[in-house]
């Protein structure tokens, strides 16, 4: 790989569609937003960035995460166009 190619990859970004529910929707004051992040961004890093933006009160350790409408692991990779949802403790039943 040439040096130029590496620079291009580092600069590449991806668009992630984030949906908000329950207290996160209250704190973000929106249902949904599209965020553009560096291509290598992990789910944990994505939540950290959104935490800084919206001042979410829940730490990441209390949340679960879903990618494209399925529960995912925090270590799963995300790709351009993915839909991501951070899940606060549920209360069904």
């Amino acid at each position, binding site marked *: 790989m040439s040096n130029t190619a590496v620079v291009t990859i580092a600069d590449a970004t991806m668009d992630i569609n984030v*949906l*908000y*529910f*329950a*207290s996160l*929707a*209250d704190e*973000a*004051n*929106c*249902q*949904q937003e599209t965020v553009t992040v560096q291509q290598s961004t992990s789910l944990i890093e994505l939540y950290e960035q959104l935490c800084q933006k919206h001042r979410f009160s829940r730490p990441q350790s209390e949340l679960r995460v*879903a990618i494209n*409408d*399925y*529960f995912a692991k925090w270590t799963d990779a995300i790709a351009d166009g993915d839909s991501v*949802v951070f*899940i*606060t*403790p*549920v*209360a*069904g*039943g």
Partner: protein
Amino acid sequence: MTDNVHSHSMTIKRSVDEVYKLAERDGFALLDTAINEDRLKNTLDDDSCGAFVCFEGRVRNHNNATSVERLTYYGYEDLALNQGRAIIEEAKKRFEITHAIAIHRIGALEIGDVAVWVGVVSAHRYPAFDACRWILDTIKADIPVWKQEYYENDASKWLSNNG
């Protein structure tokens, strides 16, 4: 104002008929109107089954010592349907049951309204009891549904099953 940011999670994308068809096919659905328990029960009718067990979770007039006026459930429909389908599949592997159906209601509910319904049919009684309880517990743990209770003084709060 808060209603605005939650409107996507207070209603579902499907018609009532589509919901019952989905419940019959996958064993799980979300619904944003009153649950028709007889319709679900009829779907489970099977001459080979000697046992039918069902659970109805209803809105109580109190939570701990606090008087509840009403509450609202919010759901993440697409994840709920994927997860619900997986729960029913898993229940059929774990227990000797013939079929199971569960429905969770979302939106504004009054005292006495059914929020969740779980029905199981099987040849013998113990697997129906065990599966019904396991499905309910797993729904409460894993289905992305949230609720806000409203109290007499008009305050409300987000609740959680797991603290």
